[in-house]
């Protein structure tokens, strides 16, 4: 039996793009022949800022256009929304101290942000960024894009992954795979090099930190261990610098600006610029101009490094744990790959080099390497790349709540995915009809220290004496790192229904509802625009006809011709306020037709007069 696969051509070969949906910036890439390429944004440059702004008319802009609104319209504009994906309001208290998010009431399980009066969940906001990338790709490639691979931090939990998938759906993209960012980066690095050996990927981005250790062999990229911190990134460094600048300004100007959104954004922009320059220069200047006043201070790299020392230190512990989990010492790591903008900081490079005792790779642009890898994964899925395969792991252990609030682990962290586990449940009371299973993710022993994923309700159990029912529940983590649960009654062998109540994030129904609404909205918006355009056209024509009736050419028309123009005029006035643009356009065409002779007469008259003029 051969190992080849026959292509039945069930689905047309649509292009799949790779998307890096970052905290700070996002990118879209595709495989051009054998080379992954980032698609340039319309404004130039490859990075699309992950910023969304709500315009005064209720529509949205994302990317550069939204960034431009950050200072003048801070209350309508959001950034770093990735930090809120799949989280509840109590998870993000720390972030809220740092970021100017305006959380709406009732955000316990799903956060809602207030954008100038409009309430939006993080997946809906991220969907706007994805839409921008989708449009960019469509304009560049000249075809419709409906399928994508999207990258997520390796250390994202189930809810955060689900939220990312929801964002894709809301943007009209079928998310064929969620790929872990460091793993994607390894694909981009391994593609042309045909490397064998053990590679560590150190991914320090705007809002998250990940470390993954992989074994590369015969085109197989096997993740051995992964670790990370979903709340650690360049944002934290910016906060340190902003605190200093705002404090300085307060003492210099005698005014505390930390509650002034516009001022804070101005300062933020200034310190980020300084941070970037510090990766190349030993000393830089932070310069802020606000409200006609100026603030300046010098910042030496030395002081900067002291300020961020503990942040860099916090990335090293996960690295050590990942090595321990993989059963490897630093000497056994052949290469280290650097990913994410924060790895440009010289102190970060020094720390990584010291820990792994190897000079880290920085050949590929650390901002682009994840998107390039996503494009490779997209090509693996489409079948265009056949010899590479990624075997990733789940970053967190999966367990269920047992007696006394203890978590019993079913699938351990760093298990290769897809992975599964089965557990048999029974009833504890005579005639019991339901069994509630509480699923958690995390490494700790107690329920209160782990992350609640969902509650699964096994319903309609046959009423039996306690302990007689036997229901086998299968927990399956798919290749995206997302959990599904199925149940089977072992006595009857029948599939058992399971109702899922996610602890954080949106239910499937909510996402469906949002998609329907956005489609309806989009249709509504489109129809309204067509009506508006038709009326504008009608206005122009009516004005022209009014003017023409005052012209001598009007009298040159026959009685009949004039009557038919008047009739058509009436017709257009009648439908002018209609909400159906077809009716308006039909009457416009009719009036246009009826006034053709008039227009000709006018034209001839004008020509005659013009000729007369030249004669003199």
């Amino acid at each position, binding site marked *: *039996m*051969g*190992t*080849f*696969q*026959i*292509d*039945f051509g*069930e*689905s047309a*070969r649509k292009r799949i793009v790779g998307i890096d949906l970052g905290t700070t910036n996002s990118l879209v890439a595709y495989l051009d022949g054998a080379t992954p390429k980032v698609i340039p944004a319309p404004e130039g440059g490859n990075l699309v800022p992950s910023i969304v702004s709500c315009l005064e008319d209720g529509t949205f802009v994302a990317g550069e256009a939204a960034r431009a609104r950050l200072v003048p319209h801070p209350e309508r504009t959001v950034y770093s929304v990735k930090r809120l994906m799949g989280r509840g309001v109590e998870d993000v208290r720390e972030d809220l101290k740092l970021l100017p998010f305006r959380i709406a009431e009732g955000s316990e399980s799903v956060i809602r942000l207030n954008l100038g009066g409009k309430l939006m969940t993080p997946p809906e906001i991220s969907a706007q960024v994805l839409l921008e990338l989708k449009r960019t790709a469509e304009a560049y490639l000249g075809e419709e894009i409906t399928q994508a691979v999207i990258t997520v931090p390796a250390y994202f939990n189930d809810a955060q992954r689900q939220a990312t998938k929801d964002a894709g759906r809301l943007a009209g993209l079928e998310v*064929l*795979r969620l790929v872990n960012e460091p793993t994607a980066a390894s694909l981009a690095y391994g593609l042309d090099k045909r490397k064998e050996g053990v590679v560590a990927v150190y991914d320090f981005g705007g809002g998250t930190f990940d470390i993954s250790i992989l074994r590369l*062999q*015969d085109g*197989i990229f*096997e993740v051995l261990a992964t670790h990370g911190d979903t709340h650690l990134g360049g944002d934290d460094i910016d906060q340190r610098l902003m605190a200093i600048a705002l404090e300085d300004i307060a003492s210099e100007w005698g005014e505390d600006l930390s509650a002034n959104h516009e001022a804070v954004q101005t300062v933020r922009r200034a310190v980020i610029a300084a941070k970037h320059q510090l990766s190349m220069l030993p000393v830089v200047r932070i310069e802020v101009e606000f409200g006609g006043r100026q603030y300046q201070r010098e910042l030496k790299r030395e002081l900067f490094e002291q300020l961020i020392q503990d942040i860099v230190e916090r990335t090293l512990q996960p690295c050590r744990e990942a090595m321990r989990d993989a059963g490897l010492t630093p000497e056994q790591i052949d290469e280290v790959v650097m990913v994410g903008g924060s790895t440009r900081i010289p102190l970060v490079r020094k720390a990584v080099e010291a820990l792994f005792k190897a000079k880290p790779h920085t050949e590929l642009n650390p901002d682009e390497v994840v998107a390039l890898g996503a494009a490779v*994964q997209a090509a*693996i*899925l*489409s*079948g265009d790349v056949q010899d590479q*395969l*990624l*075997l990733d792991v789940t970053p967190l252990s999966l367990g269920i709540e047992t007696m006394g609030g203890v978590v019993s682990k079913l699938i351990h962290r760093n*298990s*290769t*995915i*897809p*992975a*599964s*586990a089965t557990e048999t449940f029974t009833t504890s009371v005579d005639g019991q009809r339901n069994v509630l299973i509480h699923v958690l993710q995390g490494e700790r022993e107690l329920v209160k220290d782990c992350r609640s994923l969902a509650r699964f309700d096994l319903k309609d159990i046959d009423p039996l004496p306690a302990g007689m029912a036997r229901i086998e529940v299968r927990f*399956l983590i*798919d*290749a995206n790192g997302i959990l599904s649960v199925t149940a089977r009654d072992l006595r009857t062998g029948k599939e058992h229904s399971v109702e899922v109540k996610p602890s954080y994030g949106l239910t499937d129904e909510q996402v469906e509802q949002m998609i329907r609404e956005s489609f309806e909205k989009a249709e509504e918006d489109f129809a309204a625009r067509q009506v508006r355009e038709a009326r504008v056209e009608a206005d122009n024509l009516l004005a022209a006809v009014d003017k023409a009736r005052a012209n001598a050419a009007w009298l040159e028309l026959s009685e009949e011709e004039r009557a038919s123009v008047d009739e058509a005029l009436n017709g257009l006035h009648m439908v002018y306020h209609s909400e159906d643009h077809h009716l308006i356009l039909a009457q416009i065409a009719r009036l246009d037709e009826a006034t053709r002779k008039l227009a000709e007469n006018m034209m001839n008259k004008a020509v005659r007069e013009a000729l007369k003029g030249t004669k003199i």
Partner: protein
Amino acid sequence: MSELHILGGPAGADHPHCWRCGHDPAPEAKEPVSLFCQFCNSLQPPVPDYFAFFNLPRNLSVDLEELQRRFYSLSRLLHPDRYTRRPERERTYSLEATAILNDGYRVLRDPVERAEYVLKEAGFDIGEQRSRDVPPELLEEVFELNMAIDELKSGDSSVVPQLEESRRHFQTMLAEIDSELAGRFTEHDRAPGRDAKREVLERIRKILNRRRYIRNLVAQVDQQLTAQGA
């Protein structure tokens, strides 16, 4: 490579039909379940038997390099990444099959998990076996250990060296147990016939219980030592 595709199903099961083309997917095979249909090459519903999946004899000793080689080859054949453009039913089978492959690789590459799996398949009760009862030869030592832990908890850090010594001792015992296990594995694999194998398995079960008990002790000591910052 081709013999990897033949999967052992439950003995005496009917030869199935391919869900796609209706043929018996592997008419020549002694064991009736196969990963792919010989006729149309479609992936068949997978059967969760780890040894059959890797096409390995039901032995307790496993060549780990060979296991890894087969894991990689099967991953290439079964992984969901390879089925994006295939019918939905086949995509589901690919997900199921890859989960079995990964679960099986995890179990078979670890000697203890592998032995527990074989015990469970042979009908031994291992999951419920909570080894709370102290093995008699350890009674005295465990008693002293508990005293030391209590003292440490009440703030007496002079017992730290004693705890570290116990820890080393238990680690040595674990190493001895592991080499004993390896010997029993060979004994099991060579034993002629079912009954002889079962006899060895029974002994392995006892060793595994002892091992689990000692491992829990080590974990307990570790936890106390880290908690006290010692």
